């Protein structure tokens, strides 16, 4: 600790941080632009000037930029010296020479950092009398709008896009005062992190095109803390609603998870919620025709449908823990089946076993970004968990610090660190089925089948352990020894894997590697990507089996009725199998959007999306996080657990064996009741009680307001329906109001509905919510881990049989690959995402494509298990001959059981 004097008062501060960070952390307001807490200092904008004095007798002092000045014990600075106040005003005036006065029509207006800083510095009178510079804007695709005349050249965009996110199609052009930030020509930004430009830009150069289409100012948005549902990372988000439409998604800071950023799937996937075809009323199917029926009628139908025969429940990895639990409780533990394929169910169980019993620490995203060596084995995280890829991308820069630390360059001096160490990249290894967007930064990238990947991992572990060369996979030996050496030399290596290849062997190899590294004393950490937002929660809740088991019961007639929760089983099981199983059963489906499964239902009951409900999700690291209802209640958007409780209520006559938990459901009145029952039955979930305050929680006697203190139109909000002011809806489930009435200060971190602080209207106000700028939120970040690694677990290494790939004549080994835009079910329903989703395709090696007389984009037919799939050809380098990679989950593509052998033929259609 050091003592520094600010405006003549002493403050105890942490050494080794920049003066700007220190002052902001202490609560002082210093304006800035180019500095960003995740990207640190470059000293470009010259806005954060303060006065520094040599000693206490120095009355004159000298101006320094606080972002590029370190703190030293005894240093004296002034933030409010008249000369430096005038300097900061002068900088804004210079930035304003070319900035258009278009705030009223600018999407950033009202949450613009430049506006805030202009007001803060007191620049009110314009002296510049010459013409402003203008630019031609670019079409950057469906996510981002470009209005470069507003640019103040802080260079944050290009630093984020290129240096942080690794994008290579966006840059800075030109020189002197004609600097252009954009692409080399019009076109969609290629990076899946492009949406962050909206929040990184301190003004309105990059704005959210999806929000623009139903624009609402920040102060008119109803917001609440939420969690992204589009992968297993569980990034924290702030959705914003107005007039029943979800307007946008913004980042919600979580130090351990997503930090300051989101991926474009998470940011733009929300529009499935706004779709016209959302299920808004119960639908009864008669002779293949679905017709809306009143709620009352629907419940009598449920009673009729489920009164006879045995009912089973099928849960969902995209539904909340509470909803899954409600279903499980209702139908009973013996009748509840996890809504995932049985093989995925087994893998998930294995993952839980590993997290529980391996003794290995699971890496958070932050820990990944700070790891000094990484191996990604068997999972294309850039497509299945994009934010994890972004975190891992940062790990290669750790090596830079080796020399710069030695030179005494502070780590916050981003420019110096980058320039001194740009050519020092840390070890980064990939072993995946197909090419990935991380290959470009890899020390080496291995491509192979799951068996080969597992063998490579296992061999590497053995090499680290001092084992000898394996005859069987000799061709990978060089790769394995290089990797072994680098991983062994690392102090904080991370092994990232996943189950998207359907391979337990890959998981086991990853665990062996991590255990081996741990045994060598390294702080090795593991991470296992799961397919969906609540895969781990569903796994922990358990079930009688997976989807195959459930459908077998229906097919065999052992069960007659099925309640399906938020699940399109056709995405998880071959179409013919699913159709056969459902055709003979009475099918009740609860979902918010139409799917192939709702098409086969006898009765569909509408439920709410995550934005309409409260709930809990468990991410890949077993971090449990609460999401709160954002949207005001709307037709059909009922919490699934509440719908199930109503079903329980409606059941008059029923088979007691089918609904053993019926009575407890009828007791539930609010969300906390569900939670109480849940943790009572499953103690593993007890930490959930601590992750957010209950509905009865009040601050100064108030609930937290979902609407801002300047929300407009309050008294005429529904004037088209009724000129009298309406009573805001009551929320019995959460400590939030659907109103501007309520608490507007800083609530506990799990309840932060938006970032806003006096003088800080933009997202930069987040500084005020952190205990230390760039660090943890005040009171700790939201979420708790359910599973803690056992000390001295003593887990044994798995036995892994080394296998090499043997091609077959006339057949190809087909492996699944995923698309960031399109492979995830809900975001693929969002029109902006859909607009950039590719058509289903098959990746082949150049040699195989030639032998099949296929070129890029030429049509082909893939035949697996008697089914045929029409696809486009994609030729890529690095693909092993005799294998092919099928894009899975894309709209228009039926489920295929993979990996599997298949035949490929040229097609003429």
């Amino acid at each position, binding site marked *: 600790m050091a003592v520094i004097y600010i405006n003549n008062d002493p403050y105890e501060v942490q050494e080794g941080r920049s003066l700007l960070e220190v002052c902001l952390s202490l609560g002082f307001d210093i304006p800035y632009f180019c500095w960003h807490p995740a990207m640190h200092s470059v000293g*470009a904008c010259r806005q954060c000037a303060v006065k520094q004095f040599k000693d206490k007798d120095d009355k004159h002092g000298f101006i320094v930029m606080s972002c590029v000045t370190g703190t030293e014990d005894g240093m004296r600075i002034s933030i409010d010296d008249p000369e430096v106040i005038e300097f900061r005003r*002068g900088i804004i005036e*210079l930035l304003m020479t070319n900035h258009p006065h278009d705030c009223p029509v600018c999407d950033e207006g009202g949450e613009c950092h430049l506006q805030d800083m202009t007001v803060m510095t007191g620049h009110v009178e314009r002296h510049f009398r010459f013409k402003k510079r203008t630019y031609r804007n670019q079409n950057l695709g469906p996510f981002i709008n470009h209005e470069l005349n507003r640019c103040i050249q802080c260079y944050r965009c290009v630093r984020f896009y290129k240096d942080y996110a690794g994008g290579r199609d966006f840059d800075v052009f030109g*020189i002197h*005062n004609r600097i252009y930030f954009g692409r080399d020509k019009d076109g969609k930004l290629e990076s899946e992190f492009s949406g962050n430009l909206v929040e990184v830009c301190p003004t309105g150069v990059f704005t959210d095109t999806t929000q623009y289409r139903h624009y609402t100012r920040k102060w008119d948005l109803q917001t609440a803390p939420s969690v992204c549902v589009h992968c297993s990372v569980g990034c924290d988000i702030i959705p914003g609603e107005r007039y029943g439409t979800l307007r946008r998604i913004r980042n919600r800071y979580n130090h351990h998870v997503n930090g300051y950023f989101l991926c474009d799937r998470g940011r733009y996937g929300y529009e499935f919620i706004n779709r016209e075809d959302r299920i808004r009323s119960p639908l009864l199917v008669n002779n293949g025709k679905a017709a809306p029926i009143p709620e009352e009628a629907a419940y009598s139908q449920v009673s009729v449908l489920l009164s006879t025969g045995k009912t089973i429940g099928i849960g969902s990895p995209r539904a909340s823990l509470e909803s899954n639990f409600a279903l499980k409780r209702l139908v009973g533990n013996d009748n509840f089946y996890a809504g995932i394929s049985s093989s995925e169910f087994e893998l998930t169980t294995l993952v839980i076993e590993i997290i529980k019993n391996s003794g290995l620490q699971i890496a958070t995203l932050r820990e990944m970004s700070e790891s000094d060596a990484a191996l990604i084995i068997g999972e294309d995280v850039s497509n299945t968990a994009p934010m994890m890829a972004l975190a891992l991308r940062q790990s290669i820069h750790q090596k830079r610090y080796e020399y710069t630390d030695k*030179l005494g360059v502070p780590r916050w001096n981003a*420019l110096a660190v980058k320039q001194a160490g740009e050519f020092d990249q840390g070890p980064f290894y990939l072993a995946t089925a197909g090419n990935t967007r991380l290959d470009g930064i890899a020390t080496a990238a291995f491509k192979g089948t799951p068996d080969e990947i597992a063998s490579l991992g296992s061999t590497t572990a053995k090499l680290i352990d001092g084992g000898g060369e394996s005859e069987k996979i000799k061709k990978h030996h060089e790769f394995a020894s290089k990797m072994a050496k680098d991983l062994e030399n690392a102090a904080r290596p991370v092994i990232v894997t996943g189950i998207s290849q359907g391979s337990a062997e890959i998981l086991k190899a990853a665990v062996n590697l991590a255990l081996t590294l741990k045994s060598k004393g390294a702080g090795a950490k593991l991470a296992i990507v799961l397919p969906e937002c609540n895969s781990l929660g569903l796994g922990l809740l358990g079930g009688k089996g997976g989807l195959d088991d459930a459908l077998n019961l229906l097919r065999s007639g052992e069960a007659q009725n099925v309640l399906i929760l938020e699940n399109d089983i056709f995405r998880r099981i071959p179409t013919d199998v699913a159709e056969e199983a459902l055709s003979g059963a009475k099918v009740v489906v609860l979902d918010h959007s139409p799917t192939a499964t709702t098409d086969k239902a006898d009765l569909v009951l509408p439920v709410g999306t995550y934005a309409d409900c409260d709930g809990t999700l468990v991410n890949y690291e077993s971090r449990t996080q609460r999401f709160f209802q954002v949207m005001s209640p709307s037709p059909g958007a009922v919490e699934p657990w509440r719908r199930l409780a109503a079903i329980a209520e409606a059941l008059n006559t029923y088979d007691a064996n089918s609904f053993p938990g019926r009575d407890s459901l009828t007791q539930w009145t609010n969300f906390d009741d569900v939670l109480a029952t849940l943790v009572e039955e499953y103690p593993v979930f007890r930490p959930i009680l601590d992750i957010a305050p209950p509905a009865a929680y009040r601050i100064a006697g108030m609930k937290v307001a979902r609407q801002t203190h300047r929300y407009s139109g309050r008294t005429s909000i529904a004037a088209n329906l009724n000129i009298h002011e309406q009573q805001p809806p009551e929320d019995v489930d959460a400590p939030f109001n659907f109103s501007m009435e309520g608490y507007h200060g800083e609530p506990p971190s799990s309840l932060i509905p938006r970032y806003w602080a006096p003088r800080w209207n933009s997202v930069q106000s987040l500084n005020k919510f952190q205990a230390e700028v760039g660090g943890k939120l005040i009171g700790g970040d939201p979420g708790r881990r359910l599973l803690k690694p056992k000390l001295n677990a003593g887990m044994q290494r798995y036995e892994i049989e080394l296998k090499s790939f043997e091609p077959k004549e006339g057949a190809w080994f087909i492996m699944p690959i995923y698309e960031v835009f399109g492979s995830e079910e809900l975001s693929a329903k969002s029109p902006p995402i859909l607009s950039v989703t590719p058509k289903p395709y098959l990746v082949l090696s150049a040699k195989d494509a030639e032998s099949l007389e296929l070129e890029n984009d030429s049509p082909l037919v893939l035949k697996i298990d008697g089914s045929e799939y029409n696809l486009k050809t994609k030729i890529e380098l690095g693909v092993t001959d005799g294998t092919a990679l099928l894009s899975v989950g894309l709209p228009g593509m039926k489920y295929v059981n993979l990996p599997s052998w298949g035949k490929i033929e040229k097609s003429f259609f």
Partner: protein
Amino acid sequence: MEKPLTKGFRPDGRPLTIKEYKKIGGYEALTKALKTMTPDEVLSTMRDATLKGRGGAGFPAGIKWEGVPDKDFLKSPRYVIADADEMEPGAFKDRWLMEANPHQMIEGMIIAAYAIQAEFSFIFIRWEYTEAQKCLRFAIGEAYGNNLLGNNILDSGFRLDMHVHVSAGRYICGEGTAMVEALEGKRAIPRSKSPRIVESGLWGRPTVENNTETFCNVPHIIKNGVDWYKSLSLSDEPGTKIYGVSGKVKRPGAWELPLGTTAREIIEEHAGGMWDGHELKGFLPGGASTDFLTSEHLDIKMDFESVQNAGSRFGTGTMIILDDKTCPVGMVHNLEHFFTHESCGWCTPCRDGLPWTTMILKALEDGEGRTGDLEQLKALTKMMAPHHTFCALAPGAMEPLESALKLFREDFERHISEKKCPWR
């Protein structure tokens, strides 16, 4: 009076061949260094010689070289760069040195490389110096052919390669750290000043960079010793200097003279005085980015310290003369127009402040000046004062403006009150 740097220059201006250079003692210093001195001895000689860098900032070359980390501290390649990117308006000394005797600089660079144990060196030369490029390329070829570059130089075991990089043209490349960026194939945006490039320069590795004229001094120091070198000058700063004069003087040109020669001697004797009927109104002592001095400063010694004490900067030592028939506002406008165009666009005061400055000056020149313009100019000089900007470009640009506002205030005011340029 000894003129070691320009000794033996051919009257026809053609470059000395290696034979001719050797005849006047060329490469003897290198031989001496490689055969009889350790790298540390070269470093300490250079430190003792207190040669001040001739690129403009005047940082002692020996101290700079000693800043290169030990091989124990950092085992990595090291680099030597010659800044032959002479782009300061009014400067034309390096071109002369390179065109007349390219080997002299090359020899200086090889000695520097030996001192810091570099294996690779670059000459960063501006695009427009096509003649100098030819001379250097030819001379480098000769040096390779004579075992003065490449492997095992003069059988000493030391090796060095040399490469000419032709700049695609930007004044900011003359900023040492920006030059490193340019050599890496990037936009020449200056770097953070910490770490220094001697610790972390080209590709993050230790790099010594000096001006052409600085390297030209090196062989003579090594060959003749520190005492001899110190005896050359007329001031506390050792050595000779290539001085130059441009503007309306009778014999504009460049001359090698002892450091500390007075401005009067340079302008009146060597440059032949002002054109007939023209009076000296002021002069920029060391190029475009230095403060104006006036006739009252003619008797100061032209060296780093004396010029600084007079309120300006010695800079490149090439003077630009303002006469009484030339509009000082117009001259400053021309200078600021240049700096505006050459701003790299990285930091706010320079990128947005310089264009504004130029616009006001143009308005004054066009008779569209307004009350308050001079105060605004003054305010802009404050925004672009030293350390207020990221690098020294804008503060340098402010030097002629700030001094002109003081010295020629009346002339500025007349532009506003008369609504035209009085010189037009």
